[in-house]
């Protein structure tokens, strides 16, 4: 298979775009396409400070690499979750993020959940009714809280995350299967900071397949954490991704079409704003100042208080 641009040997075929590319053209194509996505959804401009949330995985490090190559003013944020479970997962992830930043002379902010709150994510989840089997719910909540807080406190214009198309399509499928109107209404490439204490969030990789991001990381020589989080085995998101990948094999482009058609349908008024009842009833947490669905302290602050009592 030949590169459609230069005729050299192709290293990747994007069947959904009917486009095969060689290494050099592929490594140029992804940043160009990211720039187009940033502009299309008016995510940010070069004069703004961006905070990229990095986990040490392929997507977030590729995102940071691309934004840096495009000349954006971007720092990284790594959150140490304290996940070990015999695999040294968090330490290994942190090493990847640190090495990446050092090699490029970039600023990486590191926050350690255990150091900050006295318990890592697995221990935190054991002190709550949430996540008796897995700490994923507590992990997601803590990450959202910390990312928002640190981006807000640091005066960043936006928080950029490495969500790819497969992440978005799997989330969309899950929310559709369960008809969760609030989530369906809120899933966007850009989440506006429409409440006090909230920071603007953007997903510049939302139109790239997960396979494309892995190829970019490999071809760019980015060393990322290959092992999966030990708690990710059997998660719902992987289940939905596998289903979508089976469909993609039969019908190239089905994932991209599913996501983009949804965005278009929403833009055309498919979902009424009043479907998002949670958004209408948001309160401000008196402890951290972030938005919460119930009056009084948010779930994260209550969680932290519980750990300190234990």
């Amino acid at each position, binding site marked *: *298979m030949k590169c459609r641009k230069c005729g050299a040997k192709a290293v990747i075929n994007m069947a959904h775009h009917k486009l*095969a590319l060689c290494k050099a053209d592929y490594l140029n194509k992804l940043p160009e396409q990211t720039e187009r996505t940033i502009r299309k959804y008016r995510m940010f401009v070069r004069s703004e400070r961006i905070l990229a949330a990095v986990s040490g995985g392929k*997507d977030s490090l590729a995102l940071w690499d691309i934004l840096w190559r495009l000349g954006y003013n971007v720092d990284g944020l790594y959150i140490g979750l304290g996940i070990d479970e015999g695999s040294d997962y968090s330490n290994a992830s942190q090493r990847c993020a640190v090495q990446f930043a050092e090699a490029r002379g970039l600023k990486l902010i590191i926050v350690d959940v255990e150091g900050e709150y006295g318990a890592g994510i697995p221990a935190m989840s054991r002190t709550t009714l949430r996540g008796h089997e897995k700490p994923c719910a507590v992990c997601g909540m803590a990450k959202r809280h910390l990312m928002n807080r640190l981006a807000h406190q640091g005066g960043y214009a936006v928080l950029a995350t490495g969500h790819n198309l497969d992440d978005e399509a799997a989330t969309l499928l899950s929310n559709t299967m369960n008809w969760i109107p609030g989530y369906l209404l809120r899933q966007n490439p850009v989440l506006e900071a429409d409440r006090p204490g909230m920071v603007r969030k953007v997903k510049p990789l939302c139109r790239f397949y997960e396979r494309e991001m892995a190829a970019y990381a*490999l071809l760019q020589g980015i060393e990322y954490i290959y092992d999966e989080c030990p708690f*990710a085995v059997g998660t719902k*998101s992987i289940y939905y991704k596998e289903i979508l990948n089976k469909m993609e094999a039969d019908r190239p482009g089905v994932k991209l079409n599913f996501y983009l058609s949804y965005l278009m349908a929403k833009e055309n008024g498919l979902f009424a704003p009043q479907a998002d009842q949670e958004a209408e009833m948001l309160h401000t947490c008196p402890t951290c100042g972030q938005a919460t669905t119930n009056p009084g302290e948010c779930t994260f602050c209550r969680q932290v208080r519980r750990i300190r009592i234990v």
Partner: protein
Amino acid sequence: MTIKLLLRDKAFELKSGMTLRSSLEKAGIPLESVLAIRAGELLTEEELLKDGDIIKLVSVVSGG
């Protein structure tokens, strides 16, 4: 006249002379879920796999 596909701790031995796409289908591995590397080089799905080829498959699906 065989090739080997290696995915994490699993190995699949298959006949040579098939494309990567056909080999993955035979092994029951969705093409979308992996990248294939031969001697440090990324392969497209139409690449013909030759006798003795050892193909490292990199899983691309992450969750959580």
